[in-house]
């Protein structure tokens, strides 16, 4: 990633912060939002690449938690309800932090690849949230500074590190477990061994082991759920 691309990303980042986010507000209950986050959490855990962010849901849930906490503070601390509410909030917070950590781990691991992919997407269908994007950009800058400071001490012919050497890519063909939320026909599996293709049909609620690349679009449109 060269500096002009980084600058471009940073500029877009600033623009995004100005945009209002209320365009995709549907009538969802807190329970629905929680379910969406739980599914996103599992998908993120098991997919090799980073998936589109769910910031609007995560933010909504964090708001909800804050609201609940302020309500709890009005109750007497001896009230059994307080423990029940707090217990649930802890569980939800665990899911959210685990989800976000999982994404950060992937960003760090595939930093160059992730940012390169992000530059090809326009601002509406970004995979990273604004703060994740900022994190990724800064991470790469720091990594570059770090590499530069070390490479200076190397023999002259080893002082440059080619970009591809720093780039780790997720294995998009790696195998994943999944369950079909609805029937999906004509899923194409490429057989890299023999250079042929196989077609399968996923019936509703059936479970499968498939290469990630065969089902990537079905994960994004929620027809299948990773397990």
């Amino acid at each position, binding site marked *: 990633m060269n500096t002009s691309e980084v600058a471009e990303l940073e500029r877009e980042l600033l623009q995004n912060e100005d945009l209002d986010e209320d365009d995709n507000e549907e009538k969802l209950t807190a*329970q629905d939002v*929680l379910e969406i986050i739980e599914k996103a959490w599992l998908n993120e855990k098991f997919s090799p690449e980073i998936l589109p962010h769910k910031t609007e849901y995560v933010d909504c849930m964090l708001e909800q938690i804050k609201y609940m906490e302020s309500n709890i503070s009005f109750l007497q601390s001896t009230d059994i*309800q307080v423990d029940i509410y707090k217990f649930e909030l802890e569980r939800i917070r665990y899911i959210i932090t685990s989800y976000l950590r999982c994404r950060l781990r992937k960003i760090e691991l595939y930093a160059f690849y992730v940012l390169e992919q992000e530059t090809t997407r326009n601002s509406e269908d970004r995979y990273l949230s604004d703060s994740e994007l900022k994190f990724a950009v800064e991470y790469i800058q720091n990594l570059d500074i770090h590499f530069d400071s070390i490479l200076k001490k190397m023999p002259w*012919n080893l002082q440059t590190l080619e970009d591809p050497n720093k780039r780790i890519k997720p294995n998009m*063909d790696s195998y*994943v477990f999944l369950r079909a939320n609805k029937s999906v026909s004509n899923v194409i599996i490429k057989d*890299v061994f023999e250079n042929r293709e196989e077609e399968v049909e996923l019936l509703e609620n059936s479970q*499968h082991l498939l290469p990630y690349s065969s089902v990537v679009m079905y994960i994004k449109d929620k027809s299948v759920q990773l397990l």
Partner: protein
Amino acid sequence: MDPSEIEFIAEKSNIEIIPKFNLDGVIHLISGDIGPFRAGLPLIVPLWLALNLRQRNKCRILTPDWMDVDKLEEKKEEEKNSKFFTKMPHEHYLEVTQLLLKVANDDINRADEIRTLIKDLWDMRISKLRSSVNTFVNSGGIHASLDHLTQLEINSIRPLLPDALNMLQSLNQDSDSETEDGDSTQNTTRNRNTTDSFLSSSFHSSS
């Protein structure tokens, strides 16, 4: 994924309890409303709450319908006679059983028999799973159907099966590219040799 996280997910499933306290009104949890609690009247709550209340001795947990010696005996027989995996009475049968027996052993009828039966079921299924994984990998298949396997069972083969398949995949790709472009491999070895010799010579000169 850590098995404790699957236990965490299993704790979301519902269970019937008999509370030992009164609480007017409904509790509006984010994951849904529960209540009201009336001492002696059964109601359905998430497992995590049931276990928590039970630990504080504020409720009694009712044995779930499927956690029944006769039914499990039947299930075990069915699993034994079937070549394929049969549908389990609960998506998290092992986790729920273990949690209940740990926290509310006294509330479960014939707890020890249940424990043995569930363990037998699990062992039977896992050994079936291992042998089918072996057949699958040897057959060189690229797609496997895993109906009726529970999340914990799938997780038990996670470190092994997908990794093994990925490894096979990359080994096959490597052997392909080696036969196709043997020239380029030679080139890289030659390059490496020159760097090595350069390095050694520069070391000599500096010392």
